[in-house]
């Protein structure tokens, strides 16, 4: 296999390698795996595509996301070769204009790119969709999310403190990849809601703000749980309150059990959250309310302005099930000026 990337001679010491990678601006501060020719070739081969094939040019600096360059970053992050189709699909997804990648890449906001994997690939690749799925402990979750950040940084040119201007950053910028816990509910998983088959594997990418955990171990019915979630969505300073856009709600399995028992389903849940997840206008700073009014003029025209819904419609609530046991769910605001994108993973090239 002919690879085009420049070869770098680096000492075998892991610490010297780390120093070199950081000096070049390629790292995230943690040790990396040397992306040797052999490792990169294995990644390319597992993608089923030629190394020179371009998937597009990634803003800000419009580096060419070839299969080879994706493979180099995947190898450096510690990915197994079989993770490549997930990464290639995630790269394809962020080019959808609704994702607003140019805005997401350089903003002062605290944005991470969350990859959610759906379907059989979760098990084939060992992607955790249960306990501690956002945390440490699973190689697929950790390294796919890490590789995706490397791709945005090293191919797209979003260098922290330079062209990535985030005020605080985001813990999820080290890595943010989970699976949907499809087996924990009787409802269609997100990729099926979005028109794919249950037997398909798919990736959803979402430009997320930091998570808000919802702790409701006291409610004994589904409506109580939903009220706790709705109240956690109500932040006058969030991007969603100011700009609309999509908000993510991740339902924990124990909350799902209560909702299913009480006859709730995703359309009713979204409708409830849309109606209850409204920020009273008196909670806004006056100038910030005017800012929201300017950016969400259609919405404001039809509201009495006693309260502001944090999304522009119930369809803007991106709802799915994930996580392990415990009476918890998550609310994850987004960049606001963005929408998540779901794409089927095409494994047909990989044989």
């Amino acid at each position, binding site marked *: 296999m002919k690879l085009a990337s420049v070869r770098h001679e680096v000492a075998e010491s892991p610490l010297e390698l780390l120093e070199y990678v950081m000096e070049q601006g390629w790292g995230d501060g943690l040790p990396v795996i040397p992306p040797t020719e052999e490792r990169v070739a294995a990644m390319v081969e597992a993608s089923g595509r030629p190394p020179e094939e371009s998937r597009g040019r990634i803003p800000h600096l*419009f580096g060419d996301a070839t299969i080879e360059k994706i493979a180099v970053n995947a190898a450096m992050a510690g990915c197994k070769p079989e993770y490549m189709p997930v990464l290639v699909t995630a790269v394809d997804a962020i080019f959808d204009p609704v994702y607003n990648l140019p805005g997401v890449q350089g903003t002062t906001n605290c944005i991470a790119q969350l990859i959610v994997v759906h379907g059989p690939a979760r098990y084939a690749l060992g992607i955790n969709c249960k306990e501690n799925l956002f945390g440490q402990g699973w190689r697929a979750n950790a390294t796919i999310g890490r590789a995706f950040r490397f791709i945005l940084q090293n191919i797209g040119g979003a260098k922290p403190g330079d062209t990535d201007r985030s005020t605080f950053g985001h813990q999820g910028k080290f890595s943010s990849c989970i699976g949907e816990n499809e087996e924990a509910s009787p409802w269609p998983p997100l990729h099926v809601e979005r028109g794919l088959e249950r037997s398909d594997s798919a990736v959803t990418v979402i430009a997320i703000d930091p998570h808000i955990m919802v702790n409701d171990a006291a409610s004994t019915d589904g409506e109580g749980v939903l009220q706790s979630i709705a109240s956690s969505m109500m932040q006058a300073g969030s991007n969603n309150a100011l700009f609309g856009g999509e908000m993510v709600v991740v339902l924990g399995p124990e909350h799902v059990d209560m909702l299913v028992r009480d006859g709730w389903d995703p359309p009713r849940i979204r409708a409830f959250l849309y109606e209850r997840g409204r920020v009273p206008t008196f909670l806004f700073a006056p100038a910030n309310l005017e800012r929201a009014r300017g950016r969400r003029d259609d919405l404001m025209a039809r509201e009495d302005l006693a309260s502001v819904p944090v999304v522009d419609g119930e369809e803007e609530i991106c709802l799915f099930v994930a996580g392990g046991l415990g009476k918890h769910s998550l609310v994850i605001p987004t960049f606001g000026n963005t929408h998540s994108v779901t794409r089927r993973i095409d494994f047909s090239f990989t044989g």
Partner: protein
Amino acid sequence: MFEAFGRKKARALGFAGLPIVSIPHPITGIPLDTVHTHADEILESVAESLTQTPPEDEG
């Protein structure tokens, strides 16, 4: 705040010599008259940038 970023982006798009006029950060959360002052301060530079022939791009 975004000047170096802008220069790198211009270079990446093949316009290394793109004239860039900048104002001090921040532009948000400041009184309107300060915004007007900043605008007045750069008006001439913007006009020059729009009318001058930029140096040949380095590619």
